[in-house]
């Protein structure tokens, strides 16, 4: 028998200061099949350097801003968005 809830993989994108903090611009993160943005963030926090992320970073799922409760699906692109500074 295997887990009732399947595991899935999302791609976490990191930019600017966040990419520097974690030393990577993307991570493949495995989470439970019913995972939310918050679950993905918890997983990212286990990475070295993640202590330099703020408590509640902005997140986009598939290029749309999303809140911590939003569900993610297998293959989603979950981007952590540092404070924007365009213009």
């Amino acid at each position, binding site marked *: 028998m295997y887990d009732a809830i399947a595991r899935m993989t999302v791609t976490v994108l990191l930019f600017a200061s966040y990419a520097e903090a974690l030393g990577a611009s993307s991570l493949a993160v495995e989470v439970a099949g019913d995972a939310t943005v918050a679950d993905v963030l918890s997983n990212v926090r286990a990475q070295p350097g993640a202590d330099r992320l703020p408590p509640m970073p902005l997140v986009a799922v598939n*290029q749309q801003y999303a809140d911590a409760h939003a569900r993610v699906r297998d293959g989603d692109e979950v981007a952590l968005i540092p404070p924007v*500074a365009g213009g």
Partner: protein
Amino acid sequence: MTPLATLVLTPIDPMALVRAASGPGNGAVILFLGAVRQVNEGRDVTGIDYAAYEGMALRELQAIVDEGATRFGTADVVVEHRLGELQVEDISVGIAVGHAHRDAAYAVSRWVIEELKRRVPIWKREHYTDGTREWVDPTGHVSAGSPR
């Protein structure tokens, strides 16, 4: 004119933006240009590199020009943001708005730049005369990548 948002790696041509926002019905055209300043918050800047989450930045920019084009009556709106390495005085962003009347043209111009700064995922790293580089955090927090 279809509202148009563009990301570019090459220099911005302000006149091309002005032309795109002009037309026989537009009594007012306003061009906003953002440029790299030599001094920011008291530190001497030699250049800036702009990075973006390109796909999302382009979608957000396009959503902003689409909304700007109808929000204050019909306007012609075109926005171009440059990415990559910029020197002092280089133009980082250009926004051109054409409208029948100047009141609305100013309102659209202002609204577009404020929305851009609020939600388009673009970041800039300033280069200082002492050789250091730092990601700019407009919220005023110390950047995660640059502990001081």
